């Protein structure tokens, strides 16, 4: 097993003291170290938001792209070089707001990569507006009288769209979160890990104590992660008790498995650029 310190990036995180994202970063570094994946074989792709700054803080290749577009960039990168371990990180605004269209279709596609969402139920970097996972009636800078819309359920959405590994962690439960991430990276297919990652500056409602009072681990209650209907039922459990852990896991052929251009097994990025089959194409024009 590699040392966790090998995965510490050259930039010190600039998150607010106490931010949940520190725990997510630590857990991710631990998960990759435990899996012993060399830093240069990891590509971390993100969008825009506090949590999307993560690629700079981890010792791995990174692509810090546009707001909401991390999943398509990561999909192209993974399909382009299947030898890479591709991990996508971002927040709830990035993934479930502006980027939700890509989330839906990436779940369907089942490309072998991991998506970690630091879900703090608020827009942090833009100083505290409502997000797609802000609970109903919660007051934010953009909803001073409380939100009118109900919150989106990332777990239910991922399940219904076909993600093959669906989990939820809590950044106050680091070791548990690292194990969920490890399982996600090891899983052959599209793995979603939604993480309760409290925003200590702008979310005064969903705080560490708020979560600690409510979260319980699915595995402590003998949840069967192969049961889709049960997973869906658990996805909507919200209130006095909120489940974390692995909701659902299923093996389905990945996109790469079924894509004709990848059948040779050699990544596209390593294929020769010079071709010898042009005469046959030319002949078809005649």
């Amino acid at each position, binding site marked *: 097993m590699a040392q966790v310190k090998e995965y510490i990036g050259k930039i010190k995180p600039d998150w607010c003291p106490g931010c949940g994202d520190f725990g997510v970063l630590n857990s991710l570094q631990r998960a990759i170290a435990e899996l012993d994946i060399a830093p240069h074989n990891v590509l971390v792709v993100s969008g825009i938001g506090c949590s999307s700054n993560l690629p*700079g803080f981890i010792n791995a290749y990174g*692509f810090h792209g546009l707001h909401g577009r991390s999943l398509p960039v990561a999909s192209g990168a993974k*399909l382009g070089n299947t030898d890479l371990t591709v991990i996508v990180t971002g927040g709830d605004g990035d993934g479930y707001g502006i980027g939700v269209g890509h989330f839906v279709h990436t779940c369907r596609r089942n490309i072998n990569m991991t998506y970690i969402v630091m879900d703090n139920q608020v827009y942090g970097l833009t100083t505290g507006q409502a997000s797609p996972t802000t609970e109903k009636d919660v007051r934010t800078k953009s909803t001073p009288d409380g939100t009118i819309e109900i919150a989106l359920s990332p777990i239910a959405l991922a399940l219904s769209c076909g993600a093959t590994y669906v989990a939820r962690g809590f950044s106050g439960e680091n070791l548990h979160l690292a194990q969920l991430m490890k399982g996600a990276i090891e899983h052959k297919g599209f793995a979603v890990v939604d993480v309760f990652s409290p925003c200590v500056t702008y979310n005064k409602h969903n705080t560490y104590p708020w979560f600690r009072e409510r979260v319980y681990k699915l595995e402590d209650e003998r949840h069967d992660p192969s049961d889709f209907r049960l997973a869906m039922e658990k996805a909507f459990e919200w209130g006095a008790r909120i489940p974390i852990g692995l909701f659902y896991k299923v093996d389905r052929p990945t996109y790469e498995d079924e894509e004709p251009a990848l059948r040779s097994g050699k990544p596209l990025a390593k294929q020769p650029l010079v071709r010898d089959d042009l005469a046959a194409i030319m002949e078809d024009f005649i």
Partner: protein
Amino acid sequence: MTQTLTELTVWIGGAAGDGIASAGESFAKACSRSGYHVFAYNSYQSVIRGGHVCMHIRIGTHKVYTQGDELDYLIALNQDTYQRYAKRVMPGGAIFYNTDKFQAKPDGLAKNVQLIGLPVMELAGNQLMQNTALMGALIQVIGLDPAATLELIKERFAKKGEAVIKVNADAFDKGTEFAKTKCKPGEIRVGQGDGRRRPLAGGNPMVGFGMVAAGCRFYSAYPMTPASSLLHWLVKYGAKTGLLVKQCEDEISAVNMAIGAGHVGVRAATGTSGGGFALMTEAIGEAGMTETPVVIVEVQRGGPSTGLPTKTEQADLFQLLGASQGEFPRAILAPRTLQECYTAGIQAMNLAEKYQCPVLISSDLYLAERLETFDGVDINHIPIERGPMVAQAGSNGYRRFLDTPTGVSPRALPGTAGTIYTAATDEHDEDGVVISDVFTNPPMRAKMMSKRMRKMDGILKELPAPQIDGPRNADLTLVGWGSTYQVLLEAMETLNKEGFSAGGGSAFGGNVNVLCLQVIWPFPAEAVTKLLVGCKMTMSVEANYTGQIVKLIRMETGLSIQHHLRKFDGEPFELKQVVDQARTILKTKPKESVVASVVSDEGLPPDFSPIESPATGSEAVRQH
């Protein structure tokens, strides 16, 4: 009286769903295989059934530059087509139709036009054979060898088995037999072809072919007319060539996927039309900022908004130039011919990697969806240039965005040991460390901007220099960009042929040459200035309302084009429209220099100064 010409034109018209495109393609291919030059253009609508579709196919014993304005033979698959075009058939031509569908009245036809009605049911026993039987009659009347068409029938239905081939071949034979026994040979004939089997293609497949030839292995797209046929062509060859083609949920995903693939070292592209390109806008800047190679093909159609989905226009020039906020290096190529579509595909792949920036290929429906013969392209000497790459870090470590004299930083691909970096869309330093939020650093920002923008100097030097086609010192220079090139060339040849007199002048007052741009950005300002300063009179020809290339030229050179022909009705320029306008200018306008015209005496911007000229037949042609 039979007249043997160097070219003739056939129109096949009907409703969408009548199989016009496939009948027209078969005829075009039969001709291209029989030694003729072909240019076909399908005028269609955004409906799957109904509406009106008409394919114009011009064949010649010499290179044919456009679909032509005239009509020698018409296949009318419905009464609507007959009523629209029958009277336009040239004297000595013929009209073919199915008598089971409608009865054609010979009123108002030109002299000696044969009206040839085939009883399709009686001949072929099946109405589905209508197009094949009519094609047989057409081939017989024109006097072409039926062998090429029969060969195509065999190829086309090979997968469906002998029985299907036989039904179609029989229907074709019945058509030829009917024409042989019941009709006169056509009076309009085209001379013998040269026997060469020429390739026949459209601009979309040729761009695709060029990209594949240059090692493109990833194409992601969302369907949008008229870029979809590029997607379809690449899908067809994807499995054969190891190219991954991904249909995406939207154009935003398509361009970002291509950027992701480009980031890990795959030659990647996406393609769309104006509306989809608008969605890609933000990501074009992403490629510029992260210095990621990506090629984007923009096949323009009539705008604005949904506009004219199945019609042509050149009105996205400033969208291409201005796509995405901020400033970053980009190249915009505007191929003018099928061969240039192919070379643009290759060059775009090379430029994108060599300069690590987005490269845009500007095409349009007229170029993309035409079917034209060409005399081959070079498939044996494909340059592959990737620019500097690093396989491992040097002793001083690795800086992904190293400031260099060319602005190009050696690129390490993810997966390489010892060169780890993050590519960020935020401003960053040479190491890729973001400087936007905490460590704002104005000198570093200025340095990184300058580094990136410096790449434009290198790109400009690599691109083909603009040139004038035709005689030096012509009295009038026709100015355009991209797909209108060939209509300008044909107009030039037509005018110069009719115009020259022995004394060096001409019957109508001058001769013509052509300046048609194939590089839009970086704009070759110095070269264009030199060429324009040497011109006597200038006339722009553009398929848009506001004169976009005229504006760009003035912006970059300070020179104004004097006279203008603009078209925005969705249909391509007709030769006659260009020729008539040019002739009017040559006859009536003083021969002032282009430099002098910077000052407009009408108090209007020079490219809006109207000139008096006769209408050219189409209400929507705007002439200034």
